[in-house]
């Protein structure tokens, strides 16, 4: 239903709803869809999580391998985030090498996790300058019903929080220990619909909105990452207001994350 012609017909309807502070699915403009988080279902992964944000579903698996540190940070572990827009998630997703859309998504999620220092990278050093743990965060999108950014960040955070360092398998130590997690980055994504700004857009809303803004906060309310996307624009006031709204609205996601 997200073909261009349908989008154009829906656009007016969605915009007039937003102008009255309403949404097609009955939510208010600053409300997240229901969140469900399940962890630890993939036994071959060091950590895993399946997150439902409304009907959007993302599966995240953490793998850890021994690698070499970067020359400028010999005592720090490293991380890599990839997102796979699985073809079964959306009729428009094609297989093949990752495209811009998928790369942007991985990089925004990566920044939220990395810049919040959620993972204690120093604790991932095995031998200074020689051996460190590399954390692979692989995100598998199973069902795209909008707002992949927040769903992926949440899935990554949930999977990391339940990951164990595979010391035994790699002969590093006698015991697998929890991956050291220091804080909880949460991202909030907004869409511009007409001249209204809405939180947590669905895929129908994404098809007609003109601009997107993602902001990630840590639990102390400090900003950790942000990204503006799509070819529309936000006013300065809208950006400032969205950042404030994010600080208030990310509580539901934080609670869901704490509940696991």
């Amino acid at each position, binding site marked *: 239903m997200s073909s261009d012609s349908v989008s154009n017909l829906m656009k007016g309807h969605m915009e007039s709803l937003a102008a009255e502070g309403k949404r097609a699915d009955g939510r208010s403009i600053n409300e997240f869809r229901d969140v469900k988080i399940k962890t630890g279902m*993939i036994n071959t992964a060091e950590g895993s999580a399946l997150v439902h944000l409304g009907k959007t579903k993302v599966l995240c698996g953490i793998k850890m391998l021994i690698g070499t540190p970067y020359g400028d940070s010999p005592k720090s572990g490293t991380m890599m985030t990839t997102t796979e827009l699985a073809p079964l998630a959306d009729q428009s997703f094609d297989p093949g090498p990752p495209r811009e859309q998928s790369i942007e998504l991985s990089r925004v999620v990566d920044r939220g996790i990395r810049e919040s220092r959620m993972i204690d990278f120093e604790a991932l050093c095995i031998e200074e300058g020689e051996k460190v743990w590399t954390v692979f965060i692989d995100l598998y999108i199973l069902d795209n019903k909008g707002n992949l950014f927040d769903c992926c960040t949440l899935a990554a955070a949930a999977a990391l929080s339940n990951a164990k360092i595979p010391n035994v398998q790699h002969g590093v130590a006698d015991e697998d220990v929890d991956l050291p997690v220091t804080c909880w980055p949460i991202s909030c994504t907004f869409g511009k619909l007409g001249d209204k700004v809405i939180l947590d857009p669905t895929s129908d809303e994404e098809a007609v909105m003109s601009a997107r803004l993602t902001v990630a906060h840590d639990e102390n309310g400090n900003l950790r990452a942000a990204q503006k996307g799509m070819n529309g624009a936000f006013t300065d006031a809208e950006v400032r207001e969205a950042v404030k709204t994010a600080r208030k609205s990310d509580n539901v996601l934080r609670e869901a994350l704490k509940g696991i």
Partner: protein
Amino acid sequence: MAGQTDMELIKDGVRLDGRKPDELREVKITAGVLDNADGSCYLEWGNNKVYAGVFGPMECHPRHKQKADRAIVQARYTMAPFSVDDRKRPGLDRRSSEISYIASQAFEKVVMVEEFPKASIRVDMQVVEAHAGTRCAAITAASVALADAGIPMRDMIPACASGKINDIVVLDLNKKEDNYGQADLPLAIIPSTGEVVLLQLDGHLSPEQFEEAMDLATSGCMDLYKIMRDALDKSYGGKK
């Protein structure tokens, strides 16, 4: 197949995981788990976990792949990077491409492709956790997803492997048996006619063992077929 090894995989008719030679691992199937796909299925087979999604029939892209008199089935099998012990690099490799290709051809036999000229039916199979037998798990899940999508089909195709461990023919190899066993024979059949739509074999089987392995895999497919029908019945059977 690592070939002959000294590892004892079966003792007094009991396998390492406690199964009898002709016993399947536990299979759980749920139809209709995804919203965007026209049809979908989630399947757990032992520790294997697979999602399947179906889109179509829809216009076939690229155009040069269109068939004037029928639809084509474009099946795709992929494994998640975290689905195996050592992280797998994302994307299609030669193994995934081969499985995708033979699965497409198997589905074209049962889907009523002649009803939809120039169309394409996309069948996506995502393995999220792998412990041997994922191609069979994926094809079985995809069959249920095709039915869930309401695509006209002559029948569903259950897929199940048999193999050989310590010179004994057994059903449905697990990870260890696959690594240290002597043969693996994945089979997919059309239950209503008994026709074979997918057959592979690697390893070593005597003519008698081959006959036995075919019988065993066929009976495994029939057991699986019942589980597939029950899953659809649970979603669509209505009141009894």
